[in-house]
């Protein structure tokens, strides 16, 4: 035993810098993510649902092309259906993001994680950054695939847009950015609440239930508030045609970044204050 141990012992290296601690924590998070099957499935589901729903809805629209009302025809956003799948994808990304934190509390590995990286704020940042990067890569592939396939479907109707048309490239990247920020929010919600069921419930309530309830408010409150909700702000990021009651893409990005930052701040305070 002593023969095996002793040669391995390395002289104490100089104290690692915080960027080094962050990089190591991020690498560990990537290892965690790729070594569990469920996360790979959730990411595949994200791609399939983003592309699949976009293709499905675009096909339906194409099939009823000549039966549309004039209002529908003029207000047609060639990207709206292409990116409809993002609404579904944000749910799988949301659940997976929550699980990045809550599965560690459920299995008890959070104590190993904190033991390995006692800098808890840095750890949260590493977790959010790693997950968001993975979501970013998957979302970019999904959004570009959805875009090109859907525009190909619209081409026979001469309604498709090109990636070089004004605002289009920005919208495709905005769609992926929407998912990236939802992912980071989900990690933060998971960190703040620690339990999977509670965190998923809160996240879904914010993304799905609150928008429905706000529309019940008397006008003009309903429209005024709706555009500032995370879901609407996210949708604004991938819109090309300007809808009333929808923020500009830049404002949408800003609002969603604000929510993300606020939620991460709450999570950081909770992680540092609480015993693990």
């Amino acid at each position, binding site marked *: *035993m002593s023969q095996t141990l002793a040669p*391995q012992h390395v002289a104490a290296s100089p104290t690692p810098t915080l960027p080094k601690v962050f990089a190591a924590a991020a690498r560990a*998070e990537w290892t965690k993510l790729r070594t569990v099957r469920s996360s790979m499935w959730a990411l595949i589901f994200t791609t399939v649902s983003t592309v699949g729903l976009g293709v499905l809805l675009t096909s339906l629209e194409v099939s009823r092309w000549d039966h549309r009302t004039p209002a529908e025809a003029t207000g047609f956003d060639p990207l709206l259906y292409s990116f409809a799948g993002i609404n579904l994808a944000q749910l799988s990304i949301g659940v997976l993001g929550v699980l990045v934190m809550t599965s560690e509390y459920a*299995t008890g590995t959070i104590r190993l*994680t904190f033991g390995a990286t*006692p800098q808890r704020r840095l750890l949260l940042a590493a977790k959010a950054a790693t997950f968001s990067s993975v979501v970013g890569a998957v979302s970019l592939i999904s959004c570009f695939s959805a875009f090109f396939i859907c525009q190909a479907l619209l081409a026979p109707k001469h309604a498709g847009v090109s990636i070089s048309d004004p605002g289009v490239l920005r919208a495709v990247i905005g769609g992926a950015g929407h998912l990236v920020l939802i992912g980071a929010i989900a990690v933060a919600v998971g960190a703040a609440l620690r339990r999977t069921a509670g965190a998923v419930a809160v996240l879904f309530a914010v993304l799905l239930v609150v928008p429905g309830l706000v529309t019940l408010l008397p006008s003009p409150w309903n429209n005024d508030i709706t555009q500032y909700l995370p879901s609407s702000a996210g949708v604004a990021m991938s819109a090309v045609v300007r809808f009333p009651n929808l923020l500009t893409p830049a404002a949408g990005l800003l609002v969603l970044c604000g929510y993300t930052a606020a939620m991460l701040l709450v999570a950081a305070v909770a992680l540092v204050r609480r015993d*693990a």
Partner: protein
Amino acid sequence: MIEAQQLTKRYGTTLAVDDLSFTVAAGQVTGFLGPNGSGKSTTMRMIVGLDAPSAGRITVAGRSYSRLRFPLHEVGALLDANAVHPGRSARNHLVWLADSNGIARQRVDVVLAMVGLTEVAHRRAGTFSLGMGQRLGIAVALLGDPQVLIFDEPINGLDPEGILWVRRLLRSLADEGRTVLVSSHLMSEMALTADHLIVIGRGRLLATGRVADFIEQTSGHHVRAATPEASTLTTLLREKGATVTADGTEGLSIKGMECRDVGILAAGAGLTLYELSAQRASLEDAYMELTHEHADFRATADSPLRSTR
């Protein structure tokens, strides 16, 4: 070296750890002993910065754990062997921990071999037996080749061969000059494994010192003798400075004199002895006595389970 100074942990109105001060020195195995619920695990969680003390402080090599960067190089801990993702392989469990502290991946295979899990390294940790899980937890502690090691009940779930292996491992780690703190609620196990003891009950320090001294002090041995002429022998023994108490009509319990001297004294006076033996209260008895009032959950005094002992 681990140092606790007036360490206190309060959960609501419960005092889990109460003004605890101790030092764990390098180069020996220190047993951390106490009944269930006495605050051992809470103290260990505070060592590795998982729980924050309500008052006082606890340091490793003079520093608070939460200030350490890449702490696995300095402190290795087995706190809960069940803390694994059941869907992740044993090897990948160690790989992410290695990644988090900049430890080379070859080290993962080295520790897997050390704990005897090489064959099952690619199996999902959720399929592991209690003993295999415990070995994986020990591998985690050894991963960064740290100078300070903390094990919370490491022999739980191990078979006799595994228990022997853990004892030897702890010994060899201490012999290499490392600081080894190992908790248990079994005095008998600690008597075999540890050099030094820290005994706590209800979060308070009850005793600390060398295991040998602890045995000496707490179990204070005495000599039992039996003779038809008990009163005569008692007088003789007391003249020689021994403390004698009657134990039945013809029995005597003698302190302060060895068996040999009692026998010579009796023979010199022509007294008949039909029993003469050194009595050593078991270590477990001493421990029970020490912690009796401090156990959180104990059986009622006359429960049938106890009387069979």
